[in-house]
């Protein structure tokens, strides 16, 4: 028996849906999903009995093609075919040939890419875009998306249904001109960045988190590998995601609890991902484009290449944060900068920097209080530290954040 790649079914499902939407048209997305589902269901039934075929992907494609042709033949009206292909797909003489061509490897890769841009509909809320990408580009089921967002499958089903009503009535993936691709690239970047963040900072199970990060990496590489979308900003985003992903293995301790950066075992970092991230970062600086992703990737590179927490080039990181603030002048970025300042100028200076940032938005942000607590503790202001930990714990968004903060607060009591 041939062993299948992990998540092979997910990726095949997404691949088939992308090309089937091309066959049936945007209005028949549900049918496209159904035909793809059917092909996998067939594989699940047949392969245990007959063994995994030599080329699993070709087998699935053949089944989906056959069913697509059946569906087109059954349809009485031309409604079942993509409007621009209806004439060709309606004729017994040309149908099979056209379908054959649509399933060829190269247009197929193009269809997968276009799917991402089709779903990055600027009118949709970002959470809906990410849910759509997870389902239709990554092949996640509703339950799995719900687990990723810590919500109920019913809520996700409703969100997807609403979002699909919007995308299916706003043109087809193929109608996106290359200029549309350019215009939507920002939205796609943002959706992939959020997808990755959901995995990196989200509260779902560790396995799910790794899956989400891996999916974001896979999809961003589709963008990098396609000439129409491989801009320096795309490459910078890919660099950033690789460098962050490299640190995933050390973020949790043996009990699955979050570890602060200075306690993480750097020998667990994935050196290959670091190398690939650095290579992409190099590539991203070809040309004049600069973006927030370039700077975030440069900061991530500083961490990923530092031999230890103490030997991190904090001064350089602060300069990068200064530049990042020009692109992203948000209190959260300023807070990260202040924390970096404290690493080489001392906790008192850090506290001054943080105090200067005081604003409504930060006061409701768990890591603002966590940072204040940490800096206060290091400045031996135990009472203040305790108060900030209490506030941070009350703001924790999930159990793993809460456990993390409680442990830090507890260490404070032991030390004093």
């Amino acid at each position: 028996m041939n062993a299948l790649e992990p998540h092979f079914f997910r990726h095949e499902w997404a691949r088939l849906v992308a090309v089937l939407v091309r066959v049936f048209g945007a209005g028949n997305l549900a049918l496209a999903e159904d035909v793809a589902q059917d092909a996998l269901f067939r594989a699940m039934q047949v392969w245990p009995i007959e063994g995994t075929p030599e080329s699993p992907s070709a087998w699935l494609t053949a089944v989906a093609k056959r069913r697509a042709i059946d569906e087109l033949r059954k349809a009485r009206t031309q409604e079942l075919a993509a409007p621009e292909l209806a004439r060709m797909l309606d004729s017994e003489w040309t149908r099979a040939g056209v379908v054959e061509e649509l399933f060829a490897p190269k247009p197929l890769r193009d269809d997968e890419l276009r799917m991402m841009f089709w779903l990055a509909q600027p009118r949709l809320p970002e959470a809906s875009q990410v849910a759509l990408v997870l389902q239709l580009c990554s092949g996640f089921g509703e339950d799995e998306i719900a687990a990723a967002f810590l919500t109920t499958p019913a809520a996700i089903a409703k969100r997807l249904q609403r979002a699909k009503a919007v995308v299916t009535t706003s043109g087809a993936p193929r109608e996106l001109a290359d200029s549309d691709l350019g215009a939507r690239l920002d939205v796609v970047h943002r959706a992939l960045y959020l997808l990755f963040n959901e995995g990196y900072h989200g509260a779902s199970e560790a396995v799910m988190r790794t899956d989400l990060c891996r999916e974001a990496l896979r999809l961003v590489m589709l963008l990098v590998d396609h000439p129409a979308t491989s801009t320096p900003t795309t490459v910078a985003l890919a660099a950033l995601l690789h460098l962050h992903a490299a640190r995933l293995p050390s973020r949790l301790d043996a009990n699955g609890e979050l570890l602060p950066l200075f306690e993480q075992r750097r020998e667990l970092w994935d050196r290959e991902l670091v190398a690939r991230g650095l290579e992409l970062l190099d590539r991203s600086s070809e040309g004049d484009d600069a973006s927030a992703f370039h700077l975030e990737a440069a900061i991530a590179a500083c961490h990923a290449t530092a031999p230890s927490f103490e030997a991190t080039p904090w001064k350089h990181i602060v300069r990068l944060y200064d530049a990042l603030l020009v692109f992203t002048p948000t209190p959260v970025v300023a807070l990260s900068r202040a924390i970096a300042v404290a690493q080489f100028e001392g906790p008192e200076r850090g506290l001054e920097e943080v105090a200067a940032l005081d604003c409504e938005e930060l006061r409701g942000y768990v890591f603002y209080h966590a940072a204040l607590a940490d800096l206060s503790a290091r400045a031996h202001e135990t009472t203040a530290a305790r108060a900030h930990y209490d506030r941070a714990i009350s703001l924790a968004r999930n159990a793993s954040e809460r456990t993390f903060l409680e442990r830090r607060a507890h260490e404070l009591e032991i030390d004093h």
Partner: protein
Amino acid sequence: MSEFLYLYRNGEKLSPEQMQQQMGKWMTWLKDLETKGVLKSAGQPLERSGKLVSGASRAVTDGLFAEAKDVIGGYSIVEAKDIHHAVELTAGCPIFGVGGGVEVRPIAKM
């Protein structure tokens, strides 16, 4: 030894990831039956759709989708000492993990 028909009744709709996992489990389970020497035929999966013909007028209706819950998605034939043994052998069938079931029917001896 007698022969028994296993009719696999589908459970809930599965995600692609679940289907991939299910497939691996089916392989293991069928292999296990084979090793025990009780698998007479692994059987064949059934098409997802069909027709139901019923009544004196032989009214023809569409069958249910093979993915729908409780619909028979396939079958196997096993050899077992008796019905209890045949039931026992279903242990480990992956279909239980996804809300489905196995109908065990003795094949009548002539």
